[in-house]
């Protein structure tokens, strides 16, 4: 039983970390309609910032700065936000598919920088020996303590974002998402709002990357491949774009799909055929994703149609298709 518990704690930690990134994407896509296809790039920036600030000195790359964990987590968020600000200023005029292509390219560029900026990132060898909080606890308690940390951060980000999107600014952001021209005509600074949402959404992605680095204790460019962007997107779409609780639920469901499908395959496929298991797992993930989208097109939890908890859902409130 301890084993199962230990695995579940591990699973919940990774899912919580993904949930933090999904919340960030939800602000960018769900509430302001910006198609960021470079989620993994921002996660990588956070992870590498955290790693560079906490890893011990190594002859190949900088290190030995010995920042405390909390300070490094905050720094990872700040650096990611600054990078997002720079990227956002360049891409502010781009809409939908153009923005998607640009951010996808930027994420690829970030991956190549990680591979080549050896002095900072350690290149393809990555950075090992990153400070893990609670590292001196026995393995099981380390897992539990880290889960508490990840869950605390997740709750914090969730509450902050909930407050943000329910504020007048949040309503204005949705107005911008639905119709930029109309919002501008009402005197909203559309570019500024989009940029703010982009930067505020990127910061949790960086934080998620930093937590991941702190949890595993090692980062390399292979941790941040394009598939991870797809996973975070799947979490948001399955959970319910435009709903923060949905984003968190989606992260847990989709990550369960990814990891547990492998377990199920191991149990139903006879040992001799398990080499084929990988393909079965990939098909299973695809089929389940499609099924969820067919039966719950708005995600497990759709967007709430009212902006105030005091109002009832009202069909007359317009909804973006």
């Amino acid at each position: 039983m301890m084993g199962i518990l230990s695995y579940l704690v591990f699973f919940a930690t990774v899912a919580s970390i993904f949930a933090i990134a999904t919340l960030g994407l939800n602000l960018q896509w769900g509430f302001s309609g910006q198609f960021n296809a470079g989620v993994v790039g921002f996660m990588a920036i956070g992870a590498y910032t955290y790693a560079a600030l906490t890893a011990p000195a190594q002859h190949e790359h900088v290190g030995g700065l010995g920042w405390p964990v909390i300070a490094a987590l905050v720094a990872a968020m700040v650096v990611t936000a600054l990078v997002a600000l720079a990227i956002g200023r360049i891409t502010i005029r781009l809409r939908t598919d153009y923005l998607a292509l640009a951010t996808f390219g930027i994420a690829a560029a970030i991956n190549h920088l990680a591979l080549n900026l050896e002095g900072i990132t350690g290149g393809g060898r990555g950075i090992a020996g990153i400070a893990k909080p609670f590292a001196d606890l026995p393995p099981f308690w380390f897992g539990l303590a880290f889960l508490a940390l990840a869950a605390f951060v997740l709750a914090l980000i969730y509450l902050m974002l909930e407050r943000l999107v329910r504020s007048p600014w949040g309503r204005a952001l949705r107005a911008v998402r639905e119709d930029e021209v109309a919002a501008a005509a009402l005197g909203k600074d559309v570019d500024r709002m989009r940029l703010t949402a982009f930067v505020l959404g990127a910061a949790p992605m960086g934080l998620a990357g930093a937590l991941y680095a702190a949890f595993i204790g090692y980062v390399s460019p292979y941790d941040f491949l394009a598939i991870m962007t797809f996973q975070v997107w799947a979490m948001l779409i399955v959970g319910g774009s435009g709903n923060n609780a949905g984003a968190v639920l989606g992260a847990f469901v989709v990550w369960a799909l990814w990891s547990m499908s492998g377990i199920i395959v191991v149990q139903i496929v006879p040992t001799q055929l398990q080499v084929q298991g990988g393909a079965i797992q990939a098909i299973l993930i695809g089929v389940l994703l499609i099924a969820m989208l067919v039966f719950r097109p708005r995600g497990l939890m759709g967007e709430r149609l009212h902006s105030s908890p005091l109002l009832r859902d009202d069909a007359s409130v317009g909804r973006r298709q």
Partner: protein
Amino acid sequence: MKTRILLALASTMTVALSGGAALAQGAQCPVRIGAVISLTGPQGPIGKPIADTAQLAVEHVSAAGGVKGCPVELALRDDTGQPTLGVDAARYLVDVQKVPAIVGVVGSGIATAIVSAVTTAAKVPMVSCCAVTPTLTRLSEEGKTGGYFFRTIPTSRVFGVAHAVAATDRGYKNPVVIYVNNDFGSSLLRDIEKALGTLGGKIAGAIPYNENQPSYRTEVNQALALKGDALILLAFSQDGATIAREWISLGGTQNLVLHNTLRSTDFINAVGARFLTKAVGIDNAQVAGPSVDAFNAGFKAKFNRDPVGPGLHTVYDSAVVTALAMQQAATLDGTAIRDALRQVQDPTGETVVPGVEGIKKGLDAIKAGRKVRYVGATGPFTFDKNGDVTGPALVWKVEDGKLVTDKVINLEQMTALFRRIGF
């Protein structure tokens, strides 16, 4: 609907987890060895035959009587080339399926993540077939693997030593290096620098290049300005030919030392054999001998083809040496197996070779309390203090447009050189 989906999900999870636990509780038989290998994803085409071979190794062990009288099963998981999933799979194998050891693991990034997050803390040995990264050596040196990391594939240091030997044998004292700008190139460069320093040479300078460019004139000119007495070229086939052509046409020396990626007739034809009369190159020496033949025969019997491809020999060894260590260990516990992994390589022990027959002899000898030495599909190998292995290398040259072997650095010489250089 929402509740129903959640319920369905929760029950699936319960079934998945409790199923694993039920299997784990039948503790004694069959004995499980965990494996995390890329079956899909970018490494999938390489990983699948590796997984097949790991399966073959486990079948051989079971047919030979199994570990502690139990048949052995491979608990195989796909990492899809994503470290996050690799770590998750390893966590499940260790926590829920209670495997006492993990073999395989193709990608270096995945192996390091698993060592860093799972196996070391859980005190479960990992015997990797294919991860060559020097980071793991460093982690071992710093004591961060707790001695629970092993691999059956030689690290890039073997190449570094071979390059240094090939250069100094010909009296090159100040070679220039042009290397591919990636993990492989830069770590190999450092190994060459260190080996060359011990053998009495010094690199005049090193120029990195990026892959798949139409021309490398800039890099070649930079390298020419360093005025070395030879060129060590660490490049992949096509780029290597472009660089060598430009180097020679711009008046560079024909004293070339080439990497194993350039050991092909394509390269010779692309550059021109008459410019390569002074060129030498290096490669892994294919070990030969009865133990290698035994593996090749076993592989052919099962798959009806020759074992050609990366990781096949090494993964077989990683699984078999782990099984022997499990037989040797007093209990099936990670730490006991870690220590036993070195005991089954006793130089004074009876030689154990691949194949059902060979493994059976080994398992029986261990049961009878006799010492054994596993000589595997990759020939004889010994884990050093970091869990790494060395291997033999060869130096080749070009004669009349053909590749010929110039000299072989055998395992004993390589081990002695490693000691001298301080690897």
